């Protein structure tokens, strides 16, 4: 076990990106190791999606270095992005088909995973438009997990769902993350979501997009109860650097929430 579990990294060094002449990303550097969950948090339009597209190869790198030593990278997008003319089963197994798996093998594997993410076998025969948004997201999640990735790039995949579904799907995702020791880089503009799920929060400023701060959350994810999440989110929201990034007005009360937990550390 131990000698197989080699550490992989997704490392970004001084990544810059321009669209025509607008600087979108400036001097982004961080390193995401195996088994960690990092969140990119920032206001809309700060270049989070661009950064993720650079990581999964949908955009060509212009400047800087991106080193990805993970063997299998899977992505989830803001929408489920299922092929409307394929059944859910065929959508789930698309990646396996691309790798040359036979129909029987890939369907067998998909059926096993489907129950784990809460899909009924009867749902699998349906076309995407016959399923609710939540179900479609489950199919998209299963499609990503079927590839047995060791790095998962998430671009707010559940942002269109209600808060209950969102929590449920993130729980599912985290279970898989701990079981498989996945590295996850997720985008969100919901600070509380990031506090609940992540080991480290990378805060981005916009225009041009750059890393403003990095918060390390020390309490393990499975020990975070609601009270802790609310408290920590409030504490982070009092940080001037966070308020500046989201263009929030300055605090009127100097210390509305006492900093009691302090189970996070502010870097850079």
């Amino acid at each position, binding site marked *: 076990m131990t000698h197989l579990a080699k550490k992989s990294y997704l490392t970004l060094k001084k990544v810059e990106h321009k669209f025509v002449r607008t600087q979108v990303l400036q001097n982004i550097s961080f390193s995401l190791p195996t088994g960690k969950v990092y969140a990119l948090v920032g206001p809309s339009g700060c270049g989070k999606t661009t950064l993720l597209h650079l990581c999964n190869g949908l955009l060509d790198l212009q400047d800087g270095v991106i080193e990805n030593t993970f063997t299998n990278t899977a992505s989830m997008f803001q929408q489920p*992005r299922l*092929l409307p*003319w*394929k059944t859910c089963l065929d959508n789930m197994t*698309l*990646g396996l*088909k691309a790798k040359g798996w036979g129909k029987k093998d890939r369907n067998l594997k998909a059926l096993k995973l489907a129950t784990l993410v809460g899909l009924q076998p009867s749902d699998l025969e349906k076309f*995407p*438009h016959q399923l609710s948004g939540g179900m479609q997201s489950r199919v998209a999640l299963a499609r990503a997990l079927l590839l047995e990735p060791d790095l998962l790039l998430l671009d707010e995949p559940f942002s269109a769902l209600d808060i209950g579904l969102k929590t449920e799907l993130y729980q599912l995702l985290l279970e898989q993350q701990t079981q498989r020791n996945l590295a996850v880089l997720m985008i969100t503009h919901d600070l509380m979501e990031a506090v609940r799920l992540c080991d480290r929060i990378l805060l981005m400023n916009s225009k041009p997009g750059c890393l403003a701060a990095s918060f390390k959350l020390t309490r393990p994810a499975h020990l975070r109860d609601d009270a802790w999440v609310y408290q920590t989110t409030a504490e982070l929201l009092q940080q001037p650097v966070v308020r500046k990034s989201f263009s929030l007005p300055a605090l009127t009360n100097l210390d509305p929430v006492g900093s009691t937990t302090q189970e996070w550390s502010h870097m850079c």
Partner: protein
Amino acid sequence: MHLLRSILGELPGYLWSGWGAICSLLLLVAVWQLVSEHYGSLVLAQPLETLASFQQLWSNHTLPEALITTGRRALSGLFLALLLGTGLGLLAGISLTASMMSRPLVTVLLGMPPIAWLVLAMLWFGASDGTPVFTVFIATFPMVFIGALQGARTVDNQLNEMAQAMQLPKLMMLFDVYLPHIFSYLFPAWVAALGMSWKIVVMAELLANQDGVGASLAIARSHLDSAASMAWICAVVLLLLGIEYLFLEPIKRQVERWRVTDA
């Protein structure tokens, strides 16, 4: 194979749903009867007279032979249009410049009345097969071309990105991502072109040829034979209805199952 089994499975239910359509068609026949009784058989032959004429034309082989001739012309023109229209349309759709350049040209072609093409075709091809084939081709080509162009231009970029991130091989990109989308635009265009071709070919034959359904219709008219005229018209319409509802509609239902919203 799967498609065929699926079509056959749903066929009885589909045929049973046809009773409503047959009822409304019979109502039309009733109105026809009333009108012909009011104006007399010379103006509009009665349905039963038409049926008798139809049977006679069928038994002396005039009707089937004419239908085959006409069908051959319509299909050859249509086939050419499908082939060239689809090919060129897709090519034009791939390049932005080509699609911008071809749009006004195709609009001109679409706006040009088929009868104008027929006049030109008669000058160029005379009374040969060339006239109806060319007219069908030139009238249906722009419809197919536009369908293919739209299909190729509107390929969903989000799905494209997803497929790229999944590292789908080129062949899978083509068959699983591009073609199903393009086909959803192409198929309706093909069906519309088929209906169009059948109407155009009869018109072309009526004016240009010595044989075929159109020519026979012209002869019946010159003999003031209202019953035979109606018989020919019925033959044309029935054949088109048959193709549309027994052949194309079931295929369409299967192929586009993913589009149907169960509202």
